[in-house]
C-alpha cells in the first residue's frame, strides 16, 4: 500500500504576540507515515499537540520546520491548496460551529459550491453523501432541528461530498451523547470499509481507539507509541505515565498478569477478555 500521508521532522511553534516571550513549541519533531485506506487513531491527553498535528494535514497550519506531504502534495504548496483540502477533509469537535447553511443539503453542498462543481454533478454527490451517512431523509431540515450526532453526520457528509481520499476527525465525538457517539463512529467505520477512505481519528476515548487498525500515542509534542491497538494498550505502565487510561479489560488482564496469572496483556475487547479468563479457570 502507498503512503497517503508522509510527515518528516515536523516541528511547529506558535508565535507569541509578545516579542519578548519565546515561541511555544507544540510539535517537536514528528515522523509519521499513514498508508492509503488505514484507520489510524491519534491518542493523547489535552495539550499534547494532537489537534495541532491534525491542522497540519490540510494546511490550516504550516510547519515551522520539516515537511508534510498528503497524497503527493506538499502542504506548503500554496497553488495546490484547494486540491489538498479536497483530498484531505476535516471534521471538527463542535458540530454547531462547522455547519454553514440553514438547510442540511445546502450545507453538504457548501464545499462543492466553493469548488465550482456543475449543478447536476453537485446534486448527485450531495444526495449520495447524505445517503451514505443515513441523513437523506433530513435533507431539507434545518440543522437546529437535529441532534448532535445527526449534525456531526451532516458535517461528515459535507466532507464526503468532496470525494476525499482521507478524512481527519478532530475529537468528533467529544461533545456527543453515547447514542450520537455510536452513530458517528459507525459512520466513520463504514466510510473506511466501503469507500476505502483513510481515516485519522483524533480522540481521547480509549475504546474508540481500540477499534482502529493502528494507534499513535502522542505526548508533549512527540509520538511515543505507534502500533496496533493490542500492542499499544499492553504497555499499561507507559500509558499511565503519560496520563492516559487503558481500556478496562486491558487493565484487568494486566493486573492479572502482574499477580502471576498466565494471561496475555494484549487484550482489547470484552470477548477476548472473557475467553482468556475462561481459559485461565480451566487450566
Amino acid at each position: 500500500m502507498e503512503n497517503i500521508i508522509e510527515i518528516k521532522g515536523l516541528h511547529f511553534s506558535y508565535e507569541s504576540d509578545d516579542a519578548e516571550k519565546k515561541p511555544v513549541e507544540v510539535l517537536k519533531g514528528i515522523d509519521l507515515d499513514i498508508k492509503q485506506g488505514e484507520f489510524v487513531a491519534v491518542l493523547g491527553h489535552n495539550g499534547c499537540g494532537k489537534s495541532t498535528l491534525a491542522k497540519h494535514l490540510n494546511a490550516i497550519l504550516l510547519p515551522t520546520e520539516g515537511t508534510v506531504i498528503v497524497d503527493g502534495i506538499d502542504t506548503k504548496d500554496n497553488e495546490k491548496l484547494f486540491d489538498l483540502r479536497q483530498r484531505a477533509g476535516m471534521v471538527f469537535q463542535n458540530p454547531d460551529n462547522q455547519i454553514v447553511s440553514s438547510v442540511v443539503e445546502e450545507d453538504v453542498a457548501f464545499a462543492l459550491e466553493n469548488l465550482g462543481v456543475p449543478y447536476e454533478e453537485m446534486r448527485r454527490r450531495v444526495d449520495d453523501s447524505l445517503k451514505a451517512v443515513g441523513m437523506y431523509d433530513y435533507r431539507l431540515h434545518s440543522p437546529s432541528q437535529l441532534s448532535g450526532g445527526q449534525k456531526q453526520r451532516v458535517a461528515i457528509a459535507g466532507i464526503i461530498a468532496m470525494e476525499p481520499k482521507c478524512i481527519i476527525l478532530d475529537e468528533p465525538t467529544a461533545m456527543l451523547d453515547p447514542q450520537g457517539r455510536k452513530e458517528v463512529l459507525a459512520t466513520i467505520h463504514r466510510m473506511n470499509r466501503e469507500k476505502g477512505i483513510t481515516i485519522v481519528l483524533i480522540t481521547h476515548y480509549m475504546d474508540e481507539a481500540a477499534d482502529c487498525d493502528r494507534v499513535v500515542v502522542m505526548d508533549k509534542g512527540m509520538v511515543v507509541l505507534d502500533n496496533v491497538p493490542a500492542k499499544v494498550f499492553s504497555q499499561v505502565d507507559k500509558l499511565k505515565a503519560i496520563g492516559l487510561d487503558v481500556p478496562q479489560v486491558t487493565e484487568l488482564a494486566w493486573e492479572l498478569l502482574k499477580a502471576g496469572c498466565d494471561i496475555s496483556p494484549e487484550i482489547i475487547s470484552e470477548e477476548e477478555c472473557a475467553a482468556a479468563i475462561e481459559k485461565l479457570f480451566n487450566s
Partner: protein
Amino acid sequence: MLRDITIGQYFPGNSVIHRLDPRFKIIITIIYIVMLFTGDNFLCLAVGAVFTFGAILLSRIPLKMFFKSVKPLFIFLIITSLINLLFMSRGDVLFEWKFIKITDEGLTTSAFMVIRIVLLIMGTSLLTYTTSPITLTDAIERLLSPLRKIKFPVHELAMMMSIALRFIPTLIEETDKIMSAQKARGAEIDTGSFAVRAKNLVSILVPLFISAFRRADELATAMECRCYHGGEGRTRLRQLRSAPRDYIALAVTVLFLAAVIVLGKLF
C-alpha cells in the same frame, strides 16, 4: 421561552405566491410600494387594496396574520392620523374647540394616510410570510449581483446574512443556557427593578459575546477546510428558475401600477 421566537415569520406553504421566484417577488414588492405612493386619491387606493387582498387570498395565509402584522405599528398609525387631523388647516372647519380645529380635508387626509400605511404593511408582510429568509437572502444576492462590477461586496454581504440566519437559533439556545446558569448563581434577570435587571443583563451578554467570537473563529476554519475562497467561481445548489407564472405576476403588477397612474391623472 426564548425558543418561541420566530425570525422572519415565514409560513411554509405551497400556494402560487409561495412558488413565485423570490427575485420576482422582491421586484413586485418594490413596484407595489411605488404603486401605493403614486396614487393620491381614494380610487387609486382602492385599486391598491384590490391588488393586496387578491394576493393575500392567493397566498392562502389567514387574513388574521396580516392584521397581526399591523398591530405593532398601531401607535405609529394613531400618531400619523392625529398629526394629519390636527395640523391640516385647509378645507371647511367641522369642529373647533380652543386650539383644536378639525377640517374635512384633514379628516380625509388622515384616513387616506392610515389606509395607505396599513396596505403597505400588509403587502410587504406577504413577501416575508411566503418567502423563507434564506431564499430571500439568495434572491437579494442575485438581484444585486450587477453591483459587483463597481466592487460592491454582494456575495460577502449575502454570506454574512445567511450565516447570521443560520446562527440565530444556536445563539438563542445558548442565551437560554447562560441565563439559566446565571440564575442558578443568583442573578436577578426576571425580577428586580429595571436598573438591576439592566445591570444583570451584562452577565449574560459578556459570555454570549465571548462564545460568539469563538464560534466565528471555528466556523471560519471549517469554511476554509471546505475550500471557501469568496464568491469567485462559485456554483449553487439552489437554482432559481423563472417560470411563465413569474412573468404573468409581474405583468399583472405593472398593469395595476398603470391603472393607478391613469386614475391619479384622471381624477
